[in-house]
């Protein structure tokens, strides 16, 4: 603990969002600093690196208007913390926790560091409880459970926004316990913001939103999800709520990470993304979970837009290695007019096994899901054959499987804007399998 506040006017260089400060007497890694610009603005920053009297600071907010002569930096002797308390519910903030909804800032009950400590693996309990999203393809075939992290892999031009919006409106617990949504938008356009804003207005006190707009400072894109997850952990593990965190879009997050990394002159990895991106993403995704003896949970649904529709691009690739499955949207289904265009074949929920069946969803769930998946996979394989030899050259059973696949897409995958509960989803599955009982065993 330092007795006096340290102030410096020894800025030697400013490079992108980074600021270099000379002859610093004492500084801590990750220490929060306040920066006064010559024109009287106040910004915050964080200490990234300290060497021989020189300190490297990452500035949250734009560095426009900063100079090397008049800019003042004061050290706070504390790491960055998020304000927490009941007042956070129902509010919209920007990427630095400033209110965006024209209401005054709430009065924090206490503060916690935004860089969360890792959950002790032996304190975790295995996720098993079902969360109903209202989408048949997710609830029926790729079931989401409390404490899971399940990303949505989308491509430019696919209706990820509509799906996210519906998730915000529709997601709920089957037993209706205390439930909150934390919505994090990174690099959102104003057009999209207006769209989501209408949804948020209808949600009353069930949500907290952190909005970083496309023209907001890039560094805040790295901060916003950490603030949001700190809030989510507090809601879950102190206030005992089940919290669903929706982050859109992680591609913007990773691009911001690359931008800062380049400014720091770090060695670029695949496609210019930094080599520590896996660990960085894990520090966000791994904050999802459940803890022994505590009621709440943090569940994570990040959206990832795959650049060039490429699932092997570093962003979806590293995400897939950390998360427990993925929901993949398909351009082909979108062109067939199917909504939501979820391609169930590459989609997967790794934690589904324990979250379905008697006591969770319905006794016949597992069997129905397996049969649907098997028959549809076979049908899709046969489509290639059909393209070569034509329908007439195929065995009767194979022709039936082709019909099944078409009907599966039209009846089960396609549901328009309608919400389906788990019973409705499984009833549709049952009806479809009954109709094709000869081939869909």
């Amino acid at each position, binding site marked *: 603990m330092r007795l006096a506040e340290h102030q410096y006017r020894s800025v030697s260089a400013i490079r992108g969002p980074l600021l270099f400060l000379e002859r610093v007497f004492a*500084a801590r890694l990750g220490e929060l600093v306040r920066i006064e610009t010559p024109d009287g603005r106040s910004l915050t920053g964080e200490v990234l690196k300290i060497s021989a009297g020189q300190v490297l600071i990452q500035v949250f907010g734009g560095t426009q208007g900063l100079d090397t002569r008049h800019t003042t930096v004061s050290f706070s002797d504390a790491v960055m913390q998020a304000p927490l308390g009941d007042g956070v519910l129902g509010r919209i903030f920007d990427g630095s926790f400033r209110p965006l909804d024209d209401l005054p800032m709430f009065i924090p009950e206490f503060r916690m560091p935004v860089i969360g400590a890792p959950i002790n693996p032996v*304190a975790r309990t295995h996720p098993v409880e079902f969360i109903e999203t209202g989408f048949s393809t997710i609830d029926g075939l790729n079931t989401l459970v409390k404490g899971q992290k399940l990303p949505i892999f989308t491509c430019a031009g696919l209706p990820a926004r509509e799906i996210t919006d519906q998730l915000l409106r529709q997601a709920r617990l089957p037993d209706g316990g205390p439930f909150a949504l934390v919505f994090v938008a990174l690099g959102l356009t104003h057009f999209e913001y207006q769209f989501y804003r209408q949804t948020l207005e209808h949600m009353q006190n069930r949500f907290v939103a952190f909005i970083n707009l496309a023209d907001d400072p890039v560094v805040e894109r790295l901060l916003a999800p950490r603030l949001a997850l700190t809030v989510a952990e507090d809601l879950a593990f102190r206030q005992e709520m089940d919290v669903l965190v929706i982050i859109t879009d992680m591609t913007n997050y990773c691009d911001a990470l690359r931008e800062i990394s380049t400014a720091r002159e770090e060695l670029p990895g695949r496609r210019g993304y930094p080599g520590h991106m896996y660990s960085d993403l894990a520090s966000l995704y791994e904050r999802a979970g459940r803890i022994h003896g505590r009621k709440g949970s943090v569940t994570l649904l990040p959206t990832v837009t795959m650049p060039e529709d490429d699932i092997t691009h570093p962003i979806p690739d590293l995400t897939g290695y950390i998360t427990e499955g993925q929901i993949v949207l398909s351009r082909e289904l979108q062109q067939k007019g199917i909504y939501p265009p979820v391609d169930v074949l590459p989609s997967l929920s790794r934690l589904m096994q324990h979250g379905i069946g008697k006591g969770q969803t319905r006794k016949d769930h597992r069997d129905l899901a397996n049969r649907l998946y098997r028959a549809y996979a076979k049908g899709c394989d046969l489509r290639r054959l059909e393209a070569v030899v034509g329908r007439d050259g195929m065995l009767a059973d194979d022709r039936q499987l082709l019909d099944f696949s078409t009907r599966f897409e039209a009846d089960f995958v396609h549901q328009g804007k309608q919400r389906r509960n788990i019973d409705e989803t499984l009833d549709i599955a049952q009806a479809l399998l009954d109709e094709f009982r000869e081939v869909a065993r």
Partner: protein
Amino acid sequence: MNGQVTSISGATVCVDLADLKIGDRVLVGSNRLTGEVVRLDGRIATVQVFEENRGLGIGEAVTSAKGPLTVHLGPGLLGGIFDGLQRPLSLLLEGSGDFIASGQDPFPLDCTRTWTFSSERQAGDQIRVGETFGKVKEGHIDHLLLSPHAGVLEQLYTGKLQLEHPAAMLAGGQPLHGWHSWPVRKARPYRQKLQPAAPLITGQRCLDFLFPLLKGGVAIVPGGFGTGKTVLEQTIAKFADVDVVVYVGCGERGNEMAGLLDEFGELEDPRSKRPLMERTIVVANTSNMPVAARESSIFTAVTMAEYYRDMGLDVLFLADSLSRWAEALREISAALEEMPGEDGYPTYLGSRLSGFIERAGVVKTLSAGQGSLSMILAVSPPGADFAEPVTQACLRVAGALYMLDTQLAHRRHFPAINWTQSFSLYSDTALAHFTERHAEWAKLQAHCRDLLQREDALREVAEVVGMEGLQDGDRLLMRTAEKIRLDFLCQNSFTDDAYTSPESTIEHFAALIDEHDRLAAALDGGALLDDLLKEAADAPR
């Protein structure tokens, strides 16, 4: 002697402290964070800190632990769950609650637990380094106490033993405890390395039948995400016919570790009928735990594995995943501003990796027994592209490759082991053993490969002319191959099917071939395939 922190860049910290050696453990800052010296430059030492060091300030005190990073070896490791620095996670839980705080350093072994110590040695016996001076019963195994010192036994305190008290005394007053410490990065010595000879039964039909592993052998399991690496590793951890399993979750998911711990706590070891956890050591350094500790975790784990090998036991080491270890190495190397090699990995990746993998093998131990250490290592190639440096570096030293295929996984064919690209260099040796169990093993194995290969070729034809256009003989072959794939090679890890003994494996396969041969003979006799299949379907089972 005290020094101080001079610069901080992430987990890489420079300290001003004299008389340090490379590899020395130091305690950094007022929280006494554990670090390891990785570079020396005059008085300034570069230290890799193993714990979250946010909040660490310039000028904070640094002390030397006067020795390298070590693990503590003794009875009570089995059933333990540790982090990458061998700190028991249950003690961290007591220390800092559900979230791990930095700066804790609990002793990994339980010093208050009472063991029954017995010995066949007597006062006056000459003891060499690494020799047994007694044993305790740890679960189902005889835990041999190995002497870290040489000398003449003066006294043995048999009977009730607690680790804080000496178990024996050497002439000259050197006490022998039930435990000793060993440097993490130094392979434990042995008398002689032997050729692996005995098969390691995994209970996976595809592996035991087509790509067998030997005790003391090394297999790597590369696969993109969603191809089932973790499930395969965990299934093998449950059923493999070894005495001790060391499982390292290196930079992987926390929920997966929770699942494993829950499950292993409940399941029973099919061989000893005792809880599975009693033969297992888990090292869990999940992806959000500090990167440097992830790098050290596989060394911590393999040293514990070697310790049990030195008691003459068969030990299986499973790591999930080695790529995360390599990435940790890359992050550390980048922070040290070393010249990067391929894909940004340091150029010493290959040598570091082979040094690690060579710690596997069958050995004649210093106490004259024979023990084995086998490894099954998962690799997570970026974009499922196997040309990347980690997979390639592993391939140079591994004896078996179990390649997991994204296409098979999408079809829910699990385990998604690609049968054309996987291989086992241990096959010939293993076959010598398996042929004793079933004389036809080698012939059937060749037959299986042949059928699967011909199916591939036929499928291409079928895609052009349709199944209708194939001859009956070819259609029969397609049908048999499909049965082999779906009934035999696919194996459900979540049901009773998860384990198959080699006897049942070979019977199962022989039955499939018998049926094929019978139908083929009938076709030769002029019968039509559709009639034969209809007959088979109508026949009562």
